[in-house]
């Protein structure tokens, strides 16, 4: 009896020792850290989001090649929420509680972000959101590397009002029917009113997700534009609906010199499937364009094109394109790495604290700074006109980086809100 227990104990301790030995040696060789990538790879948003997954993988590979984050290799966990908003929340939960990721890079539409937000707050995860959005949100668990309305929508409308932009007096606010376009248009409406635009000179129109027949909408725009004064269209159409919209625009002969369309969700990638010759002169407002001339940008585009060729990424292997959300993803990943190294920890609270004031030489040619308090980036705003080859001519830009205002002053009740997640959390209590 005694001998048996002794043998048992011996065997057990040997086993424990060997496991311990094995794992420590493994630990020393390839310490890894898991990171989530949460982008739709199918469904209506795949047109925009797939490439963000690829650029994130490229950044991880780059970081790993240079020794990883604090000596740990990044191990990406890629999931496909399939443009299905509730599935976003499920996948986010899986990433945080099952895969135990240190940070997640993902989401495009605001409705997907709103769907994962409670999950990240409940499980104390860390999300980097790389797309322009409507503001009206601040969370201690999210860093927003895309633009807030004052970093994209408002400057674009101001440009169209200026002499060089065509002195537009009448406005069509056209969007897909969900939270981002609705809120952006609410802000723009208030802004336009503050500039003396009458109610009758604003037309607001929405279409469902995946809408593909834009005949009536274009006819309406034409009619509205013919009723006097220079008209401009502000488009917050999202996803693959943009292809039929721009096709119809071209076919119906609505030229940019007559009625310019400025889009907030259309970049180089979305225009890939469209014949851009009839669209020359229509505009987009972003914080980055592929055509920007800056050393950091030529390096970024070169890296991407080499990576796309090496990985055989559909479309990009023949014609590599970069766009604003790709740049924002890239900035986000590097800032996270810098913050982890500053905090010397992967813990969400410590990394969040270390994010404040991080800087990164962005491909757009400016040095992006993470705001000390509000979790948003300071970004420069560029306005570009579509060229015949699907690229953009930058026709206007801000003098320098602009600080984000997540609580737009053009929405009533926002005066009392503070753009600081810690204070906001206290206020809620």
């Amino acid at each position, binding site marked *: 009896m005694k001998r048996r227990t002794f043998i048992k104990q011996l065997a057990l301790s040997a086993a424990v020792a060997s496991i311990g030995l094995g794992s420590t040696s493994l630990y020393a060789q390839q310490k890894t850290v898991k990171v989530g990538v949460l982008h739709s*790879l*199918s*469904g*209506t948003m*795949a*047109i925009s989001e*797939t490439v963000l997954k690829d650029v994130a993988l490229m950044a991880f590979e780059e970081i790993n090649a240079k020794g990883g984050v604090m000596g740990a290799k990044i191990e990406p966990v890629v999931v*496909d929420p399939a443009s299905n908003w509730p599935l976003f929340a499920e996948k986010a939960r899986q990433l945080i509680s099952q895969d135990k990721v240190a940070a997640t890079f993902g989401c495009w539409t605001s409705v997907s972000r709103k769907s994962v937000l409670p999950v990240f707050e409940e499980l104390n995860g860390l999300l980097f959101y790389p797309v322009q959005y409507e503001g009206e949100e601040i969370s201690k668990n999210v860093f927003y590397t895309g633009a807030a309305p004052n970093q994209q929508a408002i400057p674009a409308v101001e440009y169209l009002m200026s*002499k*060089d*932009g*065509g002195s537009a007096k009448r406005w069509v606010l056209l969007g897909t*029917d969900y939270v981002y376009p609705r809120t952006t248009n609410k802000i723009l409406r208030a802004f336009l009113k503050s500039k003396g635009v009458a109610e009758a000179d604003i037309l607001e*129109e*929405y*279409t*469902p997700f*995946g*809408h*593909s*027949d834009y*005949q*009536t*909408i274009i*006819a*309406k725009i*034409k*009619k509205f*534009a*013919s*009723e*006097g*004064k220079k008209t401009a269209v502000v488009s917050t159409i999202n996803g*693959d609906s943009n*292809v*039929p919209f721009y*096709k*119809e625009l*071209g*076919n*119906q*002969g609505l030229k*940019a*010199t007559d009625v*310019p369309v400025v889009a907030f969700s259309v970049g180089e990638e979305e225009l*890939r*499937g469209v*014949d851009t010759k*009839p669209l*020359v*002169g229509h*505009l987009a407002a972003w914080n980055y364009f592929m055509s920007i001339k800056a050393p950091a940008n030529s390096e970024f585009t070169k890296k991407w094109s080499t990576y796309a060729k090496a990985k055989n990424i*559909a*479309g990009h292997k023949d014609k590599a394109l970069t766009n604003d959300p790709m740049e924002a993803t890239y900035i986000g990943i590097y800032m996270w790495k810098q913050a982890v190294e500053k905090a010397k920890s992967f813990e969400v609270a410590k990394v969040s604290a270390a994010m404040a004031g991080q800087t990164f030489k962005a491909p757009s040619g400016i040095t992006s700074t993470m705001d000390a308090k509000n979790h948003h980036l300071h970004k420069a705003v560029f306005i570009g*006109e579509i*060229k*015949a080859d699907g690229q953009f*001519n*930058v*026709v206007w830009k801000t003098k320098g980086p602009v600080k984000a205002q997540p609580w737009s002053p053009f929405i009533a009740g926002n005066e009392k809100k503070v753009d600081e997640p810690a204070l906001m959390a206290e206020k809620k209590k």
Partner: protein
Amino acid sequence: MIRSVRQRAGALLGALALAFFGLPAHALDAAAVGRLAFGDGDERIEAIGALVAAGEPRVRELLQALADGELQTAGERVLIVRGEAGFDAVSGERIAPLPAERDEVVANNRLRSAVGAALASLKLLAPERATRLEAARALSGAVDAATAPLLRRALEREADAEIRSLLAMTVASLDLASSDRATRLAAIRALGDSSSASVKPLLAAAAKDPDPEIGSAAKLSLVAVEGRLKWGEIGGLLFTGVSLGSILLLAALGLAITYGLMGVINMAHGELIMIGAYTAYVVQNAFRQLGLFEWYLLAAVPAAFAVAALVGMLLERAVIRWLYGRPLETLLATWGISLVLIQGVRTLFGAQNVLVENPAWMSGGIAALSNLVLPWNRIAIIVFAALVLAAIGLLLARTRLGLYVRGVTQNREMASCVGVPTARVDTLAFGLGAGIAGLAGCALSQLGNVGPDLGQGYIVDSFMVVVFGGVGQLAGTVYAALVLGFGNKFLEASSGAVIAKIVVLVFIIVFIQHRPQGLFALKGRAA
């Protein structure tokens, strides 16, 4: 060759302009060219005015280069670069070799429309009628007072009636701002004959004039113009209704056969459409390789039919024929198949949408009225839908296969008794329905996005059309498609796309409750 023609045309125009302005020809004003290339917004617009006013023949070439994005700068120099050849913008001399460091001169919308107007005003004196007509069209509604003298002189010299009337309208819209009362009145009356939307705001402004005579004349003209524009709007609405109707019809025709005639609830119908669209994509790529891109649709249409029909017949043989008379099981099985097909295509072609381009003849549109443009791709699809409908009608009414299909669907036992191979007829009929779905996919690829989920968007619409029209009725399907098309578009025009979709669905639900047999019911003992 092309160059020499262009040069000759340039020289001709030069001679003409020379005669017109009576100035000697020499190099362009270097300062103005510099301002055009390096200045800010206002300076550049001003430079265009100065260059046009100087009346140099080569101004047209310079502005055309700017419009085409061929203008570049190298240091202080302004160049026109076409491919590998470079010319000095001021002197016109050829520059070889080209400087390595060059910047593009970026044009924005404001500059582009100023260049367009300047070019059009220069072209007004061109010898070719087509060029003048195009210029007169471009100028209507987009002129400033500076071009007025030029316009008047061009109007005096013009012999062609169509161009004259266009120019007269443009001159009248300028005269509207005149200080002479009689001129204004004449202009207002002249504009009453216009059918261009751009005169509406001008007249509306004049209607508020304190002078009662001018005000009332303007109101009269405004009513006349609006009346003419109204036709364009109504025409546009009708056209979009027919267009949507034709798309719904194409999507539903195949289902009208498989569900309507054969009674198979085929949830994979949308995926058969998707297969047709992907076939068009594959054929397009093959034809692009061969350099015959413009003609790919000729092959894509039969290929889409064949591939979808083949898949349909396979489905029928392998799955559906075991489930005849068991609608619930059929529904579940075909729904499963639809998921398999979607995932299959996703694995084969990737989850992203693929690019199916229109051939050049299907881009753009015809201007039926001044405010009504009918896009070619929509016209093509309406015609295509009509052809497919006619073909199916003939096939069902006039051929032996059609006779068999009707016979088998009406009374299977009796048909079998008189020697009709019912099993084979089932397979062929299902293949026909699937093939038509493939044709629909080929047509839809010309309008919207082609992706693995393409069919999902049409399955509900297709069932809606077939059920609304009356099951078992081809004519019912046609009427239902058109009614839903028009209904949807009229609602969209008045209350927006989101509400329209909801209202149409609610309408169908209510309608089916009150009339479950659809618009047209089969009359007979069975019904």
